């Protein structure tokens, strides 16, 4: 019987299986990509840190005083200590690399994986390259490589390889003395890797090390390091995974509508079976097994397709799917059979859940009635159920106010799911509520009356057709509203933080840069009306958090809003305190409020800074502090700056001004300088923004496509089932044209109801995304914008698509002989 049904309606079965398959494929692909990226990342950390038992890491990239190295080396229980200069470097061709300056004699005992293979010497030019670095630089032993880091360029000769460095990391190992000398870092270290004695108490040694550390250094264990990298992209990953689950959920709804219809149509068959002695339980089992078969097929195809998709995505976008989180490492696919099974099960569960409800309904109907009346069993007098829908909506509402769990908005997603399910359950009642008044206004044309009455009388049927599309439209709308709000807020923010015309910066630079003399020359270059010098430092404030940033900016204490996009009230500065301004993510991550003090290592000392206000920042998800230029100089004496904002004099030509600025910069750093006009900087930022949401859009579009296909399939099924009704209408004198018009109107009405429901549900879900999910995942807020264009076109597309499919399937139904259709019945 199942096979017969499937053979009769292959398209519907294929569609339901495809929906499940797509959901499973997307979910599994996102999972695989993330896992591969994280594994690569974890391996990369292993590689860069070698096999040290413990690392002491500098809080800022400027490093700590090298005098810490002998202190650590002489702590009892420390068997070996390896000092490291760690730099981000790049080549003229733009390849970026990690440069490690090592004392090979020390590293051999602590991180042997970082000791190069090849002729060894203390020749200042010797560099050992990992395989990835060799490939990136297309270098081989003996070839020269020019590396630029910390504002200095130096030429090295490839002396050998780093076979222990793994495949995915672009690492260059040079001698520590050369690293200090040639990159201007004399006296500074970024890291000391430590190895403990075999019989020492790790805790006691760690305690002794902690006591010895200056404020600009901290202990980092392997575990913390990998937690940090996990934190880097966790929220982004979870969000993508949730989107994939949405696709799967849409698939579940499609199975539901498909099964509902086929069950409804087979009511007489089932009734006959019941009469012939089939038990209720066997009947449920029968229908559920049909759903399971669909789910299983979809799941298997989905896991296979997901693997392929992940491979493709890794090749095209890299491990972060365009999110920009993992740089340098190109991951290989890490296949996960266990997880594949889990996703297969998820697909199965979605299909089973979709099939269970129709199965229960079919089993509940009385065989005697069903056998006689082949109709779909609708009683227009019955009120659609409300209680379940309202309960679900209330649960959803309550969950929206719950706090994050483990830094993730899991309950926020729960809230969205509950509201979505509640909204769909509310559909029949909603359809009546909308159509009731509309019916009275619609006028008396027979086709119109028929269309309205049909939908009013059988809202449950309409809901079946619509649940898939309502789910996908509401999620699309929610996502659209969120992205529009986000993009709009980012655009405003960019306008606020990029007021100047021209920006120039030295890359990867924390130490060195433009000294006061160079700054003075730049300020007096022709074409420059106003100029500001800035600097950004990395701050490692908590060992298991990615580093935060310290922005050194000229801030007018009486008008801070001119330098920073403030979103809080400004707290007055008590006497004797130094002001600092926390970015919104900073405030959330480190629980800072205006009027609180925060201790930050600056110039090798802990400094108490007073938070005066919170500013909006979308650039650094892991927090940033802004400090006034004069305060920073006062605390550190550091007058070097690496970023410059230039306002052009009226009528000045940007290109000429750039040339004039170039001319006054010291020649050794001029090659490193990048100039960007404010306009293109803004365009670039928005381009990155759009790219990082591209995958999101793609997932959404797929969900919508599945939803629309579901509408088409359901409509054609319902229309075919109504052949007798049309025959009857023809007999009582309705013209074919009138019936088509009726169907078109019915479709349009259905589409309109679905779109309205979907869009209003989407507005609610969008607010949850904006107010709950985003602040909890990324620690930033945004102002709501309504993408009216997108919402209206969604509405239009849906109404048109519903009407179109209704007419198409209607004409097919009408083409069959009217007489025969009627005769069948009496």
């Amino acid at each position, binding site marked *: 019987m199942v096979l017969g049904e499937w053979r009769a309606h292959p398209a519907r079965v294929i569609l339901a299986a495809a929906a499940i398959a797509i959901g499973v494929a997307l979910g599994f692909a996102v999972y695989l990509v993330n896992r591969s990226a994280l594994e690569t990342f974890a391996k990369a950390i292993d590689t860069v840190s070698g096999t040290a038992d413990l690392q002491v890491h500098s809080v800022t990239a400027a490093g700590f005083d090298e005098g810490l190295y002998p202190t650590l080396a002489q702590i009892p229980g420390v068997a070996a200590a390896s000092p490291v200069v760690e730099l981000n470097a790049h080549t003229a061709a733009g390849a970026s690399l990690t440069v490690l300056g090592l004392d090979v004699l020390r590293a051999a005992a602590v991180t042997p994986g970082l000791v190069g293979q090849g*002729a060894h010497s203390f020749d200042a030019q010797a560099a050992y390259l990992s395989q990835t670095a060799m490939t990136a630089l297309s270098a081989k032993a003996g070839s020269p490589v020019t590396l630029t880091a910390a504002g200095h360029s130096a030429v090295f000769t490839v002396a050998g390889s780093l076979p222990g460095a793994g495949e995915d990391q672009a690492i260059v190992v040079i001698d520590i003395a050369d690293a200090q*000398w040639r990159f201007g870092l004399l006296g500074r270290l970024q890291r000391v890797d430590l190895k403990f004695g075999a019989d020492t108490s790790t805790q006691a040694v760690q305690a002794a090390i902690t006591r010895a550390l200056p404020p600009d250094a901290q202990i980092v264990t392997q575990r913390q390091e990998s937690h940090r990298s996990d934190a880097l992209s966790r929220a982004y990953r979870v969000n993508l995974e949730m989107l994939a689950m949405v696709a799967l959920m849409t698939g579940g709804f499609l199975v539901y509508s498909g099964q509902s219809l086929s069950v409804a149509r087979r009511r007489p068959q089932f009734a006959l079976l019941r009469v012939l002695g089939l038990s209720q339980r066997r009947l449920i089992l029968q229908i559920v097994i049909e759903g399971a078969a669909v789910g299983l097929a979809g799941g298997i195809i989905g896991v296979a397709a997901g693997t392929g998709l992940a491979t493709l995505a890794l090749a095209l976008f890299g491990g972060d799917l365009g999110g920009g989180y993992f740089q340098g490492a190109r991951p290989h696919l890490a296949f996960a059979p266990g997880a594949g099974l889990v996703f297969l099960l998820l697909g199965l569960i979605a299909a089973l859940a979709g099939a269970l409800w129709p199965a229960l309904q079919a089993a509940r109907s009385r065989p005697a009635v069903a056998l006689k009346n082949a109709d779909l069993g609708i009683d227009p007098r019955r009120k659609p159920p409300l209680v379940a829908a309202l309960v679900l909506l209330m649960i959803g509402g309550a969950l929206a106010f719950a706090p994050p769990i483990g830094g993730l908005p899991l309950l926020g997603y729960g809230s969205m799911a509950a509201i979505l399910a509640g909204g769909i359950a509310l559909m029949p009642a909603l359809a009546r509520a909308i159509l009731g008044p509309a019916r009275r206004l619609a006028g008396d044309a027979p086709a119109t009356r028929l269309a309205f009455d049909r939908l009013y009388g059988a809202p449950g049927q309409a809901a079946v057709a619509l649940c898939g599309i309502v789910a996908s439209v509401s999620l699309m709308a929610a996502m659209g509203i969120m992205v529009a709000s986000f993009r709009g807020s980012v655009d405003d923010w960019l306008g606020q933080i990029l007021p100047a015309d021209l920006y120039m910066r030295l890359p990867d630079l924390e130490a060195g840069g433009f000294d006061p003399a160079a700054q003075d020359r730049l300020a007096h270059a022709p074409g420059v009306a106003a100029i500001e010098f800035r600097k950004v430092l990395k701050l490692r404030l908590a060992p298991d958090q990615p580093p935060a940033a310290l922005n050194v900016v000229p801030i007018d204490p009486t008008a801070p809003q001119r330098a920073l996009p403030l979103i809080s009230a400004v707290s007055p500065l008590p006497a004797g305190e130094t002001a600092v301004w926390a970015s919104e993510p900073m405030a959330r991550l480190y629980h800072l409020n205006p009027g609180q003090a925060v201790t930050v290592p600056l110039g090798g000392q802990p400094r108490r800074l007073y938070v005066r206000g919170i500013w909006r920042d979308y650039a650094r998800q892991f927090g940033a502090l802004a400090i006034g230029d004069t305060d920073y100089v006062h605390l550190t004496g550091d007058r070097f700056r690496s970023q410059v904002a230039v306002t052009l004099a009226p009528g000045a030509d940007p290109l000429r001004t750039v040339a004039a600025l170039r001319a006054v910069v010291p020649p050794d750093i001029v090659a490193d300088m990048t100039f960007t006009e404010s306009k293109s900087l803004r365009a670039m930022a928005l381009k990155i923004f759009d790219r990082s949401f591209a995958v999101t859009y793609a997932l959404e579009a797929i969900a919508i496509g599945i939803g629309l296909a579901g509408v088409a399939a359901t409509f054609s099924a319902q229309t075919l089932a109504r052949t007798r009704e049309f025959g009857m209408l023809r007999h009582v004198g309705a013209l074919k044209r009138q019936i088509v018009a009726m169907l078109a109107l019915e479709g349009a009405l259905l589409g309109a109801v679905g779109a309205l429901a979907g869009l209003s549900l989407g507005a609610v879900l969008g607010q949850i995304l904006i107010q709950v999910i985003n602040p909890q995942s990324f620690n930033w807020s945004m102002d709501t914008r309504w993408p009216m264009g997108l919402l209206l076109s969604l509405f239009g597309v849906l109404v048109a698509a519903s009407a179109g499919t209704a007419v198409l399937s209607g004409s097919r139904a009408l083409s069959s002989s009217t007489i025969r259709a009627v005769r069948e019945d009496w």
Partner: protein
Amino acid sequence: MRALLLALLLALAAPAVALAPAYAPVRPGVALIFPMDHGAHSAFRTEWWYVTGLLKTADGKDLGFQVTFFRSRTAADPANPSRFNPDQILFAHAALSDPAIGHLLHGQRIARQGFGLAHASTTDTDLVIDDWRLKRGANGVFSARAAGADFRLDLDLAPQQNVLLQGDHGYSRKGPNPAQASQYYSLPHLAVSGSVVRGGKRVAVTGEAWLDREWFSSLLDPTAVGWDWVGLNLDDGGTLMAFMIRDKAGKPIWNGGAIRSASGALTTLGKDDVAWGRARTWRSPRTQAAYPVERVVSVRSGGQWRRWTLRPLFDDQELDSRAAGGPVYWEGAVRTEGGRGYLELTGYAGPLKL
């Protein structure tokens, strides 16, 4: 003359570009001044403080030991002001010969000079590499501290005799070219007291040791593959040192040595005053190298040839330092008629590259 594991050091020091620093050359007629010359001579390419000796434990067991510090000047750019400048590399090696164990226990340390973690004083013997140390105290007594994974040496070495200047007042030739030479002096008959830890157990030891001091910038003739060296503390208070630089065929390229009587009468041995005979070879089961571990050394002083038969404390005193980039050689405690000392055999497992 002693020098092992130098291959590693010299390989480290080998200039990859033609920027070799001007190493100070060894010249004859340079008077050694103490305690200054107990300290490091950082202008020269290579230098060592080489202590070997025999010990008796409190329960009467014989042990041999060796503690050596090497200093090597590399090709690193002296203009680099970084405190990590690898201009001077220090390396230390220690081995314990225990007949009850039947092979050498050994350990080593290597580090670039700096930060107080590795240091060689230029004013007196004061060497530090991490927890290892060789220091000459104000009373002239050297203290040596060294440890491997399974042993630890903590020894005081008290000089009983004057410094013995090898060669021509400390200028010791090693080959036909006068530049193939080193500055070389020895302190034989050092009275040893202290302790040895083996298997976690500390035992008090006494004994007699020998300190060799040598520094140079170029040493071996290109045709040389290795050398044989012996230093003996004779029971009557006398001292014998003899060496032979060998070529591929095992023939001597250069010979040298010195013999000093208990009363201090010194005879310097020339190229033709030393002869090495073979008595018994031992084949290493690990490297298949055949070492003449038991042999006769003959020296001519005052027109008379005198012979000593050297017998190893035990055969397997081979040291394989290839894992650390060093050579394979044999360095062992030996006994002879009326004396004890150390024998060193290099270049038997393959030519020694310096």
